[in-house]
Every structure is written in C-alpha cells, then in structure tokens.
C-alpha cells in the first residue's frame, strides 16, 4: 500500500470515528508534503467530522440508557442516530466507512440539495435529542447512579493523561479542535467543560457536545465557500511529523515517518480510549460493585481504539 492508499487502512481502525482517523492521517501527510487544502474541502471535512462526533455520542448515550435498562430511551437515541447514518449514505456513498477524505482534500462534494437535506434532518434530530437528553440528564434513577460516582479530579485527570470528555468532565478545557485544524479556526470553538468530574459530568459533556456539533455543522454549511474540493499532491512525503485531531472519545495522535518512497517508513497511532484507561483505574477504587459497569462505560470505551 502506498501512502495515498493508507487512508483506507486507517479508516478501518474504528468504524465509529472512521472519518476522523482519515482526517488525522491526511493532515499529517499534507504537512509533510506542504499541501495547501482548498477552503471548501476544509469546511466539508468539518461537516463530516462533526456528523461523526454526533453519531458517536448518540451511540454512547444510547448505550448508557441501555446500561440502566432503559430500552426505549436506547432506541430513541439509536433511531436518531439512523438519521445521521442516512446523511452519510446520501452525502458520502457509504454509511460507516465513508472514505471521503483524501490527501489534498476530499473525494466528494456535497450538492446544494444535500446541504439543504442535512439542515432539514438536523431540525428533526435536534427535536428528538432535546427530549431524550432531557430524560438522561434529569431522570432520578440515572442521576442516582451517576452523580458523584467515579470521581476524577482535574489534577488526577491531567497527571494520568486523560483526554476528551473524560478530561473536560473534570473541568480542564482542553480540546484539540481549538488549535484550528481543518476549518475549526475560522468557525471558532469553545471547549465544553463540566466541573464535577463524575460520571454525570462526563455524560453532560457528551450531551452538550452533540449540540455543539449541531451548531458547528449549521455554521459550516452556512459559510461553506465555493471552489475546488481537492488539490493533486505532487511528489512523495519525506520527513517525520505528528498530527493531532479531536475524536469523539478524545485526542487522536498520529506519528508518521516517511523516507521519500511511496510507502511510509513508520506510523504510530495513539487512540483516545487507550489514554483513558489509566484514569479509569483511578476512578474505580472505593465504588460500589453495581456502579462498575456505568463508571467503565463513562469513559466511552471503544475496543477497536484500545486494541493498538
């Protein structure tokens, strides 16, 4: 596989955040090859990234409801998630591994009709989300099982290298998107944080991030510039670099080395769940046995993420 074909390989690391893996890889290679990505491609990358974040958080919120035995609520979240998957199918041509990111830009454009379709769907998605999130955040049973459970202080979170909603749930405002990759710099983003550091705070961060993503997609569509969607990269990558992006579960980190040949010399990937395992070990001591599944779930563990 050459460096361009690797995009399809890294996408398959995780199906839930496949686009963001490809984005991280492409940004690293673009840095090595000095490729300037056209503005429209950068905005399209934000749209697909945020839709991926939303569907991942929907999936997780559904699983949380399922962990409490709230089957109906689980179905509500997953039914809403289906709408997001349909958006991928219509705009990218595939539901899970969307394969739209490429070195130098994106492989597909979104037509004006499909942009309107996304906006229309987002209205329905937001309405269902309002109802379902209201139950997750205010239900007495869920609150009793999450508030004050699995507390991680800000100091512990930083020391143990927590990332993503686990870190932000402890009140640390760190989000790789604030560094402004793709079009995040132009769109502007404020990290979502909660102070408490318990399972409830992490749930609330993810629920609020769904709304943040809704807002980002709407603003990206509104400000989507015209023009090319990709540039053809010339030559081959040479050198070593790192690339960081924000995944639904936290910061994703790629280290890549190339020696000027068609194949990469080295590729090291650090996924967010892997970074969130040490904080999980710090959350568990002293908790009740029945709370272990919910606390474990609160870091949003992804097996394909952990298996590096």
């Amino acid at each position, binding site marked *: 596989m050459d460096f361009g*074909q690797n995009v399809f390989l890294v996408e398959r690391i995780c199906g839930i955040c496949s686009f963001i893996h490809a984005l991280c890889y492409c940004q690293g290679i673009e840095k090595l090859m000095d490729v300037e990505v056209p503005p429209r491609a950068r905005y399209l990358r934000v749209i697909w990234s945020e839709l991926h974040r939303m569907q991942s958080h929907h999936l997780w919120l559904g699983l949380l409801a399922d962990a409490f035995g709230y089957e109906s609520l689980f179905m509500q979240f997953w039914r809403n998630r289906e709408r997001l998957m349909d958006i991928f*199918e219509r705009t990218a*041509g595939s539901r899970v591994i969307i394969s739209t990111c490429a070195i130098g830009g994106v492989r597909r454009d979104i037509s004006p009709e499909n942009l309107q379709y996304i906006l229309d769907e987002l209205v329905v998605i937001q309405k269902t989300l309002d109802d379902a999130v209201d139950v997750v955040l205010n239900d007495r049973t869920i609150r009793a099982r999450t508030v004050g459970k699995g507390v991680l202080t800000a100091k512990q979170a930083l020391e143990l290298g927590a990332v993503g909603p686990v870190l932000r749930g402890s009140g640390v405002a760190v989000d790789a998107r604030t560094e402004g990759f793709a079009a995040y710099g132009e769109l502007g983003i404020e990290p979502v944080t909660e102070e408490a550091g318990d399972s409830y705070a992490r749930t609330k961060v993810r629920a609020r991030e769904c709304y943040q993503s809704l807002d980002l997609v709407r603003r990206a569509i509104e400000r989507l510039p015209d023009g090319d969607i990709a540039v053809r990269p010339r030559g081959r990558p040479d050198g070593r670099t790192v690339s960081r992006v924000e995944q639904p579960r936290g910061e994703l980190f790629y280290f890549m080395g190339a020696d000027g040949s068609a194949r990469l010399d080295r590729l090291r990937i650090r996924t967010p769940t892997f970074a969130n395992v040490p904080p999980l070990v710090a959350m568990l001591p002293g908790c009740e046995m029945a709370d272990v599944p919910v606390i474990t779930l609160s870091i949003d563990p992804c097996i394909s993420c952990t298996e590096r």
Partner: protein
Amino acid sequence: MMLSRVLSNLFSRPATRPFPKTSREPVEGYRGAVEFSQEECVFCGACALRCPANAIEVDRPAKTLKFDLFKCIHCACCAEACKRGCVQLRSAYHPPVYQKPEFEFSGAPVLAAEASPATE
C-alpha cells in the same frame, strides 16, 4: 410528556421497515455493486494499480481482468481511476451468494463464472 409519547407510539407507524416485503429506495451515489463494462475496457490496468485491496488483477499482454468481489472494499478508487468509465459502482447491494464468485473477462469478452452477481 410520557403520556403523549405512549399515545403517539401506539398510533404511529413503526419506525422500522418490514424488510423483505418492502425495501428502501436506493440512494443516489451509494457505492454499491461494482460493474465492469467489458466492451469498453482496454486492459490498461489503472484500476488494478489504484485498488487498495488488490481486488482487481489485470494481465495486460493476455488482456484479462479478474475481479475478486470478496476482497473489494467499495472505495470507488477503480471508478475514479478509469479514464474510459468502464468501472462503475451502482447504488445497489451485491446479492448474497453461496459460493465466492470470481468475475473474469478477457479481450474477447467471455464470462468465466456464469451468473456472476457483478453482472446481474
């Protein structure tokens, strides 16, 4: 709120579709079944070169093309690479099969595997 949800769920249609009876309208632009146009192909090998999964094998001197459906990842790189538009991805699924079919054709268009799903 609870009562209105219960009532609406009682009287609304199900959210799911009774699949074999009613199937969904195919979505335009879906990367589905891979189709080769045998008459147009000049066996240049561009599709095989770009394929990340090595699902296509082209023998230029012998003028043959082999396509392994079970290796294909439906990325549409072959369709992008083909200058003559011989490879296309239809917005439909490949039908399920009992055996692993291999689609093959040569300069004089001949189908090696009969009833290959890629040609249906």
